[in-house]
């Protein structure tokens, strides 16, 4: 039976969307620094936000590999649009999908799949990032539900969100074992959202602080059972890291393509700079790192799709692919030389955007520590 290959078909169609709808406006969007509402709605119409969820529950019936392909392609166009997409597909809706009541799914999840509502994930706090055991946002059980108190920061899409999945501590004595996820609609009393941060890169991705002061939520808005928060976190973190690696691949591809194009066009000493060995060496490194990033990332994605534990593989993929993206974007600015320093060209945007990838899913200093620990250090 003759059928299309789903991965190739999805990649081809998303790539076409990116080439036509994102790349031509990427510089303008970045300059404006506004939430890319029009593109977000177009992505919703294509049903992209449901890629990880089963069709019979309002999703598109895809998997992590397809999700990563989409993230990679969109990131090739504009990383900040890809990060918004990733938040809506994964962290912003995942716990709601798995643990929300039918009413919550109707009221929040399905509208999020249609792009009518935006969900996001509140984990980091002013004094707790990678050390999750130190989070202080409390969920206190009361007669008619839970009271949420605390402050979250670096909330991606926070200013635009309609609802938040909030990591809270239920029992500080239990540290990591006491964490859990709670669903908090933005319009609930006691939720306040700061203005968007001014950031170095990914300027269309709004990021902010969200404060919770005596926010009363119903009992069913607890999204992870007692003692299961850490396990849920470990399950999703592998996917977050794999997705981040896919974003890094997209950025590498963009930087590499522009570097090659510019190197072929720019003439110095009577020949295109692409003919100089030192420029060739930079591009050869980009190509090689890209290939390695792909192998590591899609291996981790395939493991997740097979239901295997991919924490180590995803951690190394995220670490490697992101470092490769930082290197490729840096080299891109060097190949562009003076024009790499100009805001008129793409190189500076790639360079700034690459820094976004360093922290999400764990800083590289923490990840390197994890990797070292896994070999007994």
């Amino acid at each position, binding site marked *: *039976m*003759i*059928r*299309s*290959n*789903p991965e*190739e*078909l*999805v990649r*081809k*169609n998303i790539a*076409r*969307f990116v080439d036509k709808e994102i790349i031509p406006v990427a510089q303008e969007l970045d300059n404006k620094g506004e939430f890319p509402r029009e593109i977000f709605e*177009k992505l919703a*119409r*294509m*049903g*992209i936000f*449901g*890629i990880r969820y089963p*069709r019979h529950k309002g*999703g*598109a*019936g*895809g998997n992590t590999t*397809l999700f990563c392909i*989409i993230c990679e392609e969109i990131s090739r166009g504009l990383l900040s649009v890809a990060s918004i997409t990733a938040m809506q597909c994964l962290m912003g809706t995942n716990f709601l999908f798995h643990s929300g009541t039918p009413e919550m799914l109707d009221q929040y999840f399905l509208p999020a799949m249609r792009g009518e509502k935006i969900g996001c994930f509140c984990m980091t706090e002013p004094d707790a990032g990678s050390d999750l055991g130190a989070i202080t946002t409390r969920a206190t059980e009361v007669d008619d539900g839970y009271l949420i108190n605390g402050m979250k920061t670096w909330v991606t899409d926070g200013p635009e969100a309609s609802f938040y999945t909030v990591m809270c501590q239920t029992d500080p004595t239990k540290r990591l074992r006491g964490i859990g996820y709670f669903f908090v609609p933005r319009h609930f009393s006691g939720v306040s959202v700061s203005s968007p941060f001014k950031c170095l890169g990914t300027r269309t991705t709004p990021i902010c602080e969200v404060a919770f002061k005596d926010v009363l939520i119903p009992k069913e808005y607890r999204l992870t059972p007692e003692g299961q928060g850490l396990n849920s976190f470990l399950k999703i973190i592998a996917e977050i890291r794999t997705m981040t690696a896919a974003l890094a691949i997209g950025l590498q591809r963009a930087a590499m393509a522009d570097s090659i194009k510019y190197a072929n066009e720019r003439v110095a000493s009577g020949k295109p700079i692409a003919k100089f060995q030192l420029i060739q060496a930079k591009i050869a490194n980009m190509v090689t790192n890209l290939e390695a990033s792909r192998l590591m990332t899609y291996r981790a994605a395939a493991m997740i799709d097979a239901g295997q534990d991919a924490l180590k593989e995803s951690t190394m993929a995220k670490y490697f692919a992101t470092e490769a993206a930082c290197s490729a974007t840096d080299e891109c600015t060097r190949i562009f030389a003076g024009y790499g320093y100009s805001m008129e060209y793409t190189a500076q945007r790639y360079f700034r955007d690459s820094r976004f990838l360093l922290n999400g899913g764990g800083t590289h200093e923490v990840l390197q520590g994890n990797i070292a620990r896994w070999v007994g250090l």
Partner: protein
Amino acid sequence: MNIIVLVKQVPNNTEVKLDPKTGNLIREGVDTIVNPDDLQALETAFTLKETHGATITVLSMGPVQAIDALSEAIGMGADKAILLSDRAFAGADTWATSFTLGKAIQRVEKFDLILTGRQAIDGDTAQVGPQIAEYLDLPQVTYVFDIEKLDTGYVQVKRRLEDGYERIQCSLPAVLTIIGGRSKPRYPEISKLLSACTKRAPIEVWNAADIGVTTAEVGMNGSLTQVIKTFAPKFERQSEFLEGSAASVARDLVERFKRNKLI
């Protein structure tokens, strides 16, 4: 209402290069797309489906790789798709292509409208749509950019002319060749794209025997024309500066025009 949309998978013309030695298209590694005018035909069909209700069947002839064009059409909203694929169909000119598609259309139970793009970007002949209409003995309107009315038994359309448009009413069933109109072709939905890749997808593949043709009637054997050579035109500009007085330069120029039979 039943609508048949004819689509063709073509190389993305922004990437096409010719082999300088053989003159053939270099297809390896070249992205393929659904022919842009055919995307407009699909969009027209989806608009009619939304406004009037319709079942859309998409038909294409090509190698097995052309299944992607049909999967995309399903992703955009087509109800079913048929790929005509057989080694015997290879090398068909527009005559043999129209004959083969016409035979396949006769196998589709019932239809009211056949829509297709004005022309394909790889051949630019604009012959297949009209030839199918002739083969099936159906009325045809080419260069359609707007369907104004669709009623029992007739359709009223706007047809693009060089200096304006004409309004035409014709009976159904009919063949319309479509050019870009007001609506931009929609992007496929991911869930439908993925459905199109499954065994249960409503996509059939028909060969020569399925449509009741002999190998002598189709493909290169059934073609009335043959491509002898394909080449890229050379755009070379040769400049020569004529010197002397204005009168002598003018005389020289006239002489050269005559010599080259330009005047």
